[in-house]
């Protein structure tokens, strides 16, 4: 019966799930927080340990294939490969840091809050590891649904409207995904939901194009890609900030991951056929979001639009299917998660202390909180991909790939690095610099606990930015397969 625990993927699912369920039965907030920290750190320990067992000879440790619904041909399949490891690592790093930064006493019924967060983590890890389409779909939903509760219960003033919009969008996406999956299932020769079976199934060109769009829309909403993005600024603004961190740091990676694992290998002809119009629209969206970010007067919306722009670049890179871009984008999945979480943490501290998210009502925080200012400036420059920060490596390779695909598109997309500098530095200038305004009169600098979190993120920012080799080593093989349109294994 405990055979389920003898490998890494299973542990990565059960740990957050168990932690989440336990949390619902805890009474005090402190206990729930400790419980959440305990399980999330354990998860981090498991994924870190798994990095030592990447050799093919340990494959038994790194994959799971249980008989699940034999009549349906679904087996509960999970795998840890290079791509998955990187994303699981990101998830496992972000969650404990978010838990550590959670303010005490702000969210009533905190045990449920932590519980739902852990369930989200379980869903996310499942999405990244699933090799079976039905399992993938279930984890996809499992990751979304707790977020829906978290936002609608603990969110801001307009939470219902924002959550509803978020729900409609993502639900619509899920529906397309489900239709696509079921159709493919019916077409497999053996009647299987397995990724490999999908890969081997034969489709006419029309079928491939249709299926491509079903999957694409589901993933594009999640990313989100212009013009399917309007749920995001509102959701980011209204969700409780810990949830926003998860949404923007990890959850948007579900869409990009879906493209890498499912879309590109399964529908190579459709990808090649539609790549140009899709890239053009995405790059337009990147500039659109960047220009929008210029005049945003709300920190959260500004970060949201900035994120849409940066994520858009990654999505565009995915459709070039150029080797260099794919490696860069995979690394950037990790980097973007780290950077944006650092950004949100600083934004959250500002909001918690001042109750203000309007940029024009802020100013001069650097005088009051020089340490926070340092971390914020570091996060800002990582956001604009300054060399020696992690994002430079990723974006340099992404732009390089875009350039190989089409120099003019790369040049247009490149305008976003100028716009990013403009809006990010405006944000820094208007919130942190100048003399302190009334709203920040009693602002106090960060505490050691918060310092620890920021230092951890900063170390990651510079480590990857200066010496990315270990990360490239980790993803090398998997990305190579994706570039050549092979599925895993």
């Amino acid at each position, binding site marked *: 019966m405990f055979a389920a625990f003898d490998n890494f993927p299973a542990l990565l699912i059960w740990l957050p799930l168990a932690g989440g369920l336990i949390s619902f039965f805890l009474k005090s907030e402190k206990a729930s927080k400790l419980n959440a920290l305990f399980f999330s750190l354990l998860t981090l320990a498991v994924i870190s340990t798994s990095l030592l067992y990447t050799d093919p000879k340990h494959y038994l440790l790194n994959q799971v294939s249980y008989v*699940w619904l034999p009549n349906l041909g679904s087996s509960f399949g999970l795998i840890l490969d290079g791509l998955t490891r990187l994303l699981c690592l990101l998830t496992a790093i972000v969650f404990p840091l978010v838990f550590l930064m959670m303010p005490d006493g702000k969210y009533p019924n905190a045990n449920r809050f932590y519980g739902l967060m852990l369930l989200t983590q379980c869903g996310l890890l499942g999405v990244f590891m699933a090799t079976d389409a039905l399992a993938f779909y279930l984890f996809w939903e499992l990751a979304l649904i707790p977020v829906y509760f978290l936002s609608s219960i603990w969110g801001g003033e307009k939470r219902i409207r924002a959550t*509803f919009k978020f729900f409609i969008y993502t639900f619509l996406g899920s529906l397309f995904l489900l239709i696509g999956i079921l159709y493919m299932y019916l077409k497999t020769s053996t009647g299987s939901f397995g990724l490999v079976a999908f890969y081997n199934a034969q489709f006419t060109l029309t079928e491939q194009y249709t299926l491509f769009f079903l999957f694409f829309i589901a993933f594009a909403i999640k990313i989100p890609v212009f013009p399917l993005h309007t749920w995001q600024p509102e959701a980011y603004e209204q969700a409780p900030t810990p949830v926003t961190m998860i949404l923007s740091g990890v959850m948007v990676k579900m869409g990009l991951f879906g493209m890498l694992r499912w879309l590109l290998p399964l529908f190579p002809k459709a990808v090649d056929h539609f790549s140009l119009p899709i890239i053009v629209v995405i790059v337009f969206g990147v500039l659109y979001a960047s220009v929008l970010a210029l*005049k945003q007067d709300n920190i959260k919306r500004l970060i949201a639009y900035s994120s849409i722009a940066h994520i858009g670049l990654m999505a565009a890179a995915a459709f070039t299917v150029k080797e260099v871009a794919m490696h860069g984008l995979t690394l950037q999945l990790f980097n973007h998660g780290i950077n944006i979480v650092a950004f949100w943490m600083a934004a959250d501290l500002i909001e918690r202390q001042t109750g203000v998210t309007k940029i024009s009502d802020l100013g001069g925080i650097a005088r009051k909180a020089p340490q926070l200012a340092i971390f914020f400036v570091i996060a800002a420059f990582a956001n604009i991909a300054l060399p020696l920060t992690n994002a430079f490596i990723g974006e340099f390779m992404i*732009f390089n790939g875009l350039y190989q695909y089409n120099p003019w598109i790369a040049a247009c997309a490149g305008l976003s690095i100028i716009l990013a500098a403009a809006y990010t530095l405006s944000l820094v200038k208007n919130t942190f610099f100048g003399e302190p305004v009334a709203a920040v009169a009693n602002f106090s600098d960060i505490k050691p606990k918060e310092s620890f979190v920021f230092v951890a993120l900063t170390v990651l920012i510079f480590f990857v930015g200066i010496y990315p080799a270990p990360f490239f080593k980790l993803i*090398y093989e998997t990305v190579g397969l994706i570039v050549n349109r092979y599925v895993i294994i």
Partner: protein
Amino acid sequence: MNDMTQYVFLIPLLPLIGFLINGLFRNYLTKSISGWVGTGFMLCSFVLSVMLFQHVNQPGFQPEVIFYFDFIRAGGLYIPFSFLVDQLSVLFLLIITGIGTLIHLYSTAYMHEEAKDHFARYFAYLNLFVFSMLLLVLGANYVIMFIGWEGVGLCSYLLIGFWFGNPEYNKAAKKAFVMNRIGDLGFLLAIFWMITQFDSVRYLDVFSKAPAAPVAVLTGITLLLFVGAMGKSAQIPLYTWLPDAMAGPTPVSALIHAATMVTAGIYMIARSNILYSLAPVTENTVAVIGLATALLAATIALKQNDIKKVLAYSTVSQLGLMFLALGVGAYTAGVFHVMTHAFFKALLFLAAGSVIHAMHHEQDITKMGGLRKKLPLTHLSFLIGCLAIAGIPPFSGFFSKDEILAAAHDRSPILYGLSIVASLMTAFYMFRLYFLTFSGAFRGTEKQHSHLHESPAAMTIPLMLLAALSIAGGWIGIPEVFAHDAHWLASFLEPVVPIFKPHHQAISHQMELMLMGGIVVLIIGMIFWAYRLFAKSDVSFSEPDGISKWMADKWYVDEIYDAIIVKPLNAISSWLSKIMEARWIDGAVNGVGKFVLFGGRQIRLLQSGQVGSYILVMVISILAFLLYQLFWKP
């Protein structure tokens, strides 16, 4: 690897350590420790650079690439982290660490009024700048250069906005960074093009493969690189950030915005001279833009009343002359002028800093005058700086400028004539500045007058040393007309930077001496004219009108950029957020949402109508599936 070159990594590493010490312990260090940490690491770096120079200057030295680690090796892209030690990089090392050390020393006194954490922060930024600048010149490929390139941009941003309480300064800092980013995009695209064309970004690969590449490709790459140089080295149309950058502390203006960072563009082109000499269209573009910038900035400098602004426009103008030199193929002359300019412009800025220090942060020259007696050392150094920049022999500027003029003369009489005009304007506005500051009667307040004092030794010692260099620095490049084979710099740089090849038959030495003498006479005339106008005790300052007003208002270039780029972009941004996002896109999506809900209400098979309970059922079923899997697995 030779004994000396294995320590090259220390040259940038030492300032980085200084940055870390001052940055991390800024709250615990006393001011004198911060100052000595900052200056001390710089001095060590300088000593190592001198030792490296001696190594490079030996006969038979071959350029060395020192590999450290793989920076990016993935997806078919290979970018090693490695340094290139050759004559050009070593020359820049000496300039950067040498002037850097002096300016750190000067800063220990200049910044003394700052609180200790800000004092340490200042030195941290300054050390970080030097680290980035050293990466820029030491890198053995374009990506390492780019790391340094954006790194110096960051430090420039941080130091322009050093006094972040002042909104104007923050604006200037942001403007500098964003304008530089425009150039950086050009640089990046050039790098991508190189990767596509040469499959490498390493200098040695690129330069060896360049002759086989199509001219159109080389023209494209070099033009894009030049766009990068326009941003960093403040050339038309990306020069307007540099005058605003004067918001930073004056030693910063001296080091970053005069002596080193802004010459990065010249370094880049001199480094890539093999590419540029294969792309004549780009060469002409560089020459024309350089000359146009030199003239435009000089006209503006004629009418500025802020001591630092005059020096800033003068820097833009001198950088223009350097680009002119590069554009006509006189790479050595360009690099030579970088060096002498670093000496005399750092000197002028530091002397100006000494004036500003004495005047209690007054920068308006209409409120100065007669400072000669009160600030004798400052006065002397400023005068030497002015003579050097004006091009009076035997001061350093004379030699480097003469070499540029000679090269322009060889290429075209128009280039020659216009560069003489730029030089004459330079002499005029520099001596206008000098006379208004140091001659005549004092025009400031009584209080300022009573506080006038010469600066402390930590400030005057760097002034004296730079003054000496401004006098003698040009003697390493004596033209053929004075002495045979006396141009040490040209023969030193020859392995990396080709010696200027005249297109036309060389003019006779007699003719050359006449032209040279003629120009010097004209310059002296300009100085005399400035003396007549501004050395009086009763100078009157009238509101400029007509063309002078245009010059004083900087030809309204900032206003034009604001009207055609900044404002429209902001308007589009507001429109997008108010109309496009809220009404169109969102409206369409909400419509779909309503439609779905409507459909849902009609169908209502399993749903109770509430999304919430539906989801709850879903969660429970998923959990049930998973638990089943865990505990009842067959």
